[in-house]
């Protein structure tokens, strides 16, 4: 016990795994028989409790009848699941917090703790242990994942209270926590990849949670396939890393970088290849151009899943991986430029799509894609600290926005179309207040978490030696659009006249405490979460940067920071003021269009019908992919089937059969059925054998 609490680091992923086992047993042995008996019995309220089927066609999270509170014969196992699932994650958070505090008490250069659990793969020179690594970077990730994860688990207990497959849901959610913690705590690329695939699987399972609905199961498949393309890049990158460094362990790989760089083994071209392939994986997992298309469709899943997996944690795995591999990325300026440009373009591209969406969750989905673009922009200009900082604050306010939208959907019995909302402020006051805070945070209002992290990225995009004013311009414009569509969302949902169905309005209600308490905590974090990273220019100490410095600084010092020009503090202040002004313009425009002149948006849409149509249909990217990629693959596959499979493969198989048949047809004549013939061949054989033996003995 030399390391104190750190020796219990393994508990952090192990606790959610325990939850998987316990809840899995409950789901299999208690819930499944119950549901099977239920569907045969066919009692009247089953369409009530079960979410997607029936009631309202546009609603994926139908919560019809939530108001009535009629928990008809809620079986006892549900209470057990509702306790176990959040409890294990909460315990994991406590252990992680204690571990991080213990780590923080060490000197700054000794803050890397590796716990080897068991040797995993030993094949030739490939030695991969199952080992966990806690350092400043993974501790930020572990705290965000377990902390936000715990709040979302608690929220889910309330949100899914009418769901029939209650235990199945929490099994998947716990499994996701386990995989995500393996991903962030692994000490080598291969174990990280296990977590990487694990979260992909859980994402698939949870997007398609209501698999009886066609669109939900399609969305799950789409997410999985899009991620496979990225995973292929990660695999190739891992092969290259092993080929170059002879190891997959982070510390060993990054320690060898300067040596191999000097000896000329690690050329810039090789580094570019490795990092581009890693980034391909990141575009899949983190929904960047060109593989972002799965994320908006992933909104078919339950809303807490969107909050946990598709906003706060899993989609940031790509950012984490890029930041983790920063030592390699800094060697490849071409890759850095690709990362920065893709990040900036994604940020502005998906922000514009967000303007015209009417589904509340889809707006948030495009917003997530856009914010992830910011993080990659930061990575691309070498500001990895800013990327991780924004990752953390984004986890707070975007999880809050999703959970808030879930609360709205819950209140409106499953309605997700913002055109059928309005004036909800007085029905769901807590949800409104917390969501408004999150909206201020994402819009970049000074003092809130989003302001500090976003501004850090904007400043780095401008001032870093890898940055440029163009990247700053794109990002600042995207920030303005973000402010606009987020306030559009708030105005359409909470302000103005009610456009709700009278029937729905009658039942509109605030959510139970299990949902509002997580909302409130996340709101506090959305405000205060940025205070640990207040930049020096505003009189802050930027604790966050100091905390992450041991991970990024040695490499950053050798790479980008070297050529950094020192900009005057006044410039930083001016740019900050400018970005705030842009955000305020966005808010003002939203206020003008959706509060003052509410008829104006429709007029604008009518004035430029083509533009509106293109943006409304998400630039027809899905249709383009369908035409350019999917159809081609289908045609090609059909060709292979008809040409290669039907002619060549079947030819070999049938040819072999024909050959045997033809040979048999000739050989069968020997078997005439006449016993005398057999006896004669027997005799002939015996004579030949004896003759041979005699011949041999005579010759010798």
């Amino acid at each position, binding site marked *: 016990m030399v390391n104190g609490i750190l020796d219990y680091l393994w508990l952090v992923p192990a606790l959610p795994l325990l939850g998987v086992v316990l809840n899995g047993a409950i789901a299999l042995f208690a819930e499944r028989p119950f549901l099977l008996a239920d569907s045969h019995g066919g009692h009247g309220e089953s369409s009530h409790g079960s979410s997607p089927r029936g009631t309202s066609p546009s609603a994926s999270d139908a919560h019809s009848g939530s108001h009535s509170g009629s928990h008809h014969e809620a079986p006892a196992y549900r209470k057990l699941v509702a306790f176990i699932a959040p409890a294990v994650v909460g315990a994991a958070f406590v252990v992680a917090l204690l571990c991080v505090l213990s780590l923080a008490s060490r000197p700054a250069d000794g803050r890397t703790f590796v716990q080897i659990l068991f040797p995993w793969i030993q094949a030739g020179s490939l030695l991969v242990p199952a080992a966990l690594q806690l350092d400043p970077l993974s501790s930020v990730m572990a705290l965000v994942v377990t902390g936000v994860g715990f709040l979302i688990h608690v929220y889910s207990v309330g949100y899914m209270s009418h769901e029939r497959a209650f235990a199945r849901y929490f099994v998947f959610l716990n499994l996701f926590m386990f995989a995500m913690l393996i991903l962030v705590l692994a000490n080598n690329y291969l174990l990280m990849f296990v977590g990487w695939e694990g979260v992909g699987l859980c994402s698939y399972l949870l997007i398609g949670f209501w698999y009886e609905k066609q669109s939900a199961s399609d969305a799950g498949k789409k997410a999985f396939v899009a991620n496979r393309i990225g995973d292929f890049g990660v695999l190739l990158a891992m092969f290259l890393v092993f080929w170059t460094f002879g190891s997959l362990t982070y510390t060993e790989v990054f320690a060898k970088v300067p040596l191999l760089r000097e000896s000329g083994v690690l050329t810039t071209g090789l580094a570019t290849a490795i990092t581009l392939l890693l980034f391909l994986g990141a575009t899949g997992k983190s929904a960047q151009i060109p593989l972002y298309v799965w994320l908006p469709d992933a909104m078919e899943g339950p809303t807490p899943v969107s909050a946990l997996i598709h906003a706060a944690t899993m989609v940031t795995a790509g950012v984490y991986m890029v930041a983790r591999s920063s030592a390699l990325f800094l060697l490849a300026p071409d890759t850095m430029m690709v990362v920065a440009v893709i990040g900036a373009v994604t940020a502005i591209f998906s922000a514009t799509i967000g303007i015209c969406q009417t589904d509340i969750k889809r707006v948030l989905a495009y917003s997530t894609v856009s914010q992830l673009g910011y993080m990659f922009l930061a990575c691309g200009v070498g500001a990895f600290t800013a990327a991780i900082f924004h990752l953390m604050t984004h986890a707070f306010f975007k999880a809050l926005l999703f959970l808030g939208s879930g609360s709205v959907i819950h209140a409106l019995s499953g309605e997700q179309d913002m055109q059928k909302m309005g004036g909800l402020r007085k029905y769901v006051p807590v949800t409104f207040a917390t969501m408004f805070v999150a909206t201020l945070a994402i819009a970049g209002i000074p003092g809130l978490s989003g302001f500090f992290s976003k501004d850090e990225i904007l400043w780095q995009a401008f001032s870093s030696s890898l940055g440029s004013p163009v990247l700053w311009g794109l990002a600042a414009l995207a920030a303005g659009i973000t402010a606009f569509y987020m306030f559009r969302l708030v105005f359409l949902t909470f302000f103005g006249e009610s456009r709700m169905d009278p029937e729905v309005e009658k039942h509109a209600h605030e959510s139970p405490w299990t949902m509002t308490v997580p909302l409130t905590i996340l709101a506090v974090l959305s405000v205060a979460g940025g205070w640990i990273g207040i930049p020096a220019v505003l009189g802050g100490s930027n604790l966050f940067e100091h905390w992450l410095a041991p991970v990024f600084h040695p490499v950053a010092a050798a790479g980008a920071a070297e050529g950094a020009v020192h900009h005057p503090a006044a410039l930083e202040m001016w740019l900050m003021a400018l970005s705030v002004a842009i955000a305020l313009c966005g808010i003002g425009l939203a206020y003008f269009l959706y509060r003052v002149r509410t008829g104006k948006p429709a007029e604008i849409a009518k004035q430029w019908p083509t533009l509106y149509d293109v943006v409304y249909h998400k630039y027809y990217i899905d249709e383009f992919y369908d035409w350019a990629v999917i159809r081609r693959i289908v045609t090609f596959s059909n060709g292979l089937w008809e040409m290669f499979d039907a002619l060549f493969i079947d030819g070999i198989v049938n040819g072999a059969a024909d050959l045997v048949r033809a040979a048999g047809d000739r050989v*069968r004549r020997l078997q005439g*059925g006449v*016993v005398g013939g057999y006896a004669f061949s027997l005799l002939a054989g015996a004579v030949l054998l004896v003759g041979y033996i005699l011949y041999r003995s005579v010759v010798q």
Partner: protein
Amino acid sequence: MIAPSAYLLLSAILFGIGVVGVVARKNVLIILMSVELMLNGVNVAFVAAGSYLGDAGGGVFAFMVMTVAAAEAAVGLALLIALYRLKETIDITELKVLKW
């Protein structure tokens, strides 16, 4: 004393007659008898060799072969009767259904 080669010659002649009977005759009964002839040809060789070498093993083997031959004859004749009841013939060239 008769030379051992004479016994072996007798054995070979008996065996050869048996072989010709088995291959050439059509009547199953005759074929069975020919098989007995072959076996007894071998018996002669066994007994002769045992006597020549002063080893009781040759005689023991001859008795062994006789016992098996008796059993074989019993089973063979039973099969023959069953066959005759079914086909009303014991001509081996008529019995050729076992082919593809």
